[in-house]
């Protein structure tokens, strides 16, 4: 069945308003996008929607109780809350370096959770 639907592309801050013509989950045509990414986005939204996920993880011995972390790559949208539950259990030890892997291969999705920043050990 051919259908059209409206989407807003979230690849970049432009936020193009897309009109997507599809046959099932196959994208036939996109309109309104200003770059090729729009098509990529529309295809992904129909088959395997993913989002970048940013949250925090408990950290010991640092100046803050939490360290910000994020998914290296967009994570499957339906599993975001499973991921958050997993991350909630974690506690790591300072010092932490930016891009340090905090959780490897999260939920077996092949995506690492990494630290967004350095966090040195608190000097006492």
């Amino acid at each position, binding site marked *: 069945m051919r259908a059209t639907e409206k989407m807003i592309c979230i690849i970049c801050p432009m936020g193009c308003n897309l009109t997507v013509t599809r046959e099932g989950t196959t994208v036939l045509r996109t309109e309104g996008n200003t770059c090729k990414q729009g098509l990529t986005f529309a295809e992904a939204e129909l088959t395997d929607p993913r989002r970048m996920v940013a949250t925090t993880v408990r950290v010991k011995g640092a100046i803050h*109780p939490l360290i*910000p972390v994020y998914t290296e790559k967009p994570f499957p949208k339906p599993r975001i809350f499973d991921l958050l539950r997993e991350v909630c259990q974690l506690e790591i030890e300072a010092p932490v370096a930016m891009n340090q892997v905090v959780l490897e291969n999260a939920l077996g999705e092949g995506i690492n959770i990494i630290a967004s920043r350095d966090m040195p050990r608190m000097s006492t």
Partner: protein
Amino acid sequence: MAKQLKSQYDVIVVGAGPGGLAAAISAKKNGADDVLMIDRDLELGGILLQCIHNGFGVDTFKEDLPGPSYAQRFIKEAQGVGIDYLLDSMVLDVTSGRKVFVTGTRGGFKELQARAIVIAMGCRERTRAQIGIPGPRPAGVYTAGLAQRWVNVEGYMPGKRFVILGSGDIGMIMARRLTFEGAKVERVLEVMPYLTGLSRNYVQCLMDFDIPLQLRHTVKRIIGKDRVKAVEAVQVDDRWRPVPGTGEMIPCDTLLLSVGLIPENELSQKAGVILDPMTNGPFVDDGFATNIPGVFAAGNVVHVYDLVDWVTKTGLTAGRRAAMFAQGHCNENPVFVPTAAGENIRYVVPHRIDPETLTQDTIMLQMRVTQPMEEAVLVRVTDGDTLIAKKRERYVRPGEMVSLKLRERDYDSVRHAKELRVSVAPL
């Protein structure tokens, strides 16, 4: 960290967020030997440290980074090039003679002299008083940025059930963030008939989690004496007045406000810097010089940008110009051409430009529109009947800044212009 504070610096940068960091790095790279950054927080990076969501740096680094990562790249660079900094310190006063009075627990109270100053204090959030929300004053009414600091940095949840007023980016991002942390976001209310933040944030922060957004709605009343118990939401008409009979009680314990940002210029005013009532920031030229010689402005103190990349760019320009000023290299007698806001333009930054800049560099004119136009439009820069530059946009919205670049090829027409009037109209 400044090991030994000097009493004199080539360039002092007030604020070490993205604007201040870029300004300090740029000042140092452009020949200022002694550069000092001062920040009130315990770390460099400013508000970016609490903006843990992705979406930063797409322009600057061609990467989609969280706020702390974006900040850290500049922090590393600032430390690498040998910029001094003073943390946990508040600048109390800046004078037109470029003295800086600063106080902190470690550094104590100090009077410093700068050859040039870059003000980069960022902006502050509008409060419930400024939008006049009726009701008593219980705990549980917070600005979105305050809640963001509590949740992301200090590790506390300031509520369980939230209503968010304002569809600005921070409000929507907090809606998602709070949902991630197990809170319930009942609704986002927006008084305007359109979204005020980026539409991508509507998709990935609200739509993804089925958080309802109500346009043309506001908070009629806060209920609760000690702690918020509910808010009464109401629809508004074209003049933002409540429509009778549309009130709806929403039980909640917290009302978050994301109702706009205002450039923070209390210090600038102490130095005699004159502000534009439209932007709430200083009148600036294309080098981000204010009316006070040697005082430059970077980032959200100038006007509120929607992307950090722009903040960085202004910092780079302001820092370079500050370094030049400190070294005595500047255009002695510039003949400025003023910019002006034409049709459907609320304001234009910078307020005046030196055409000579175009012989070495481009100049970005940045505008906010008054009304959204959801169709293809033409942004035009004119001087009377003469068209100087133009740009097509697929739409314009008040929440998204419009930019137009002037280039070397525009030098002649700009040089002969009396003013550069920017307007936007349907194609």
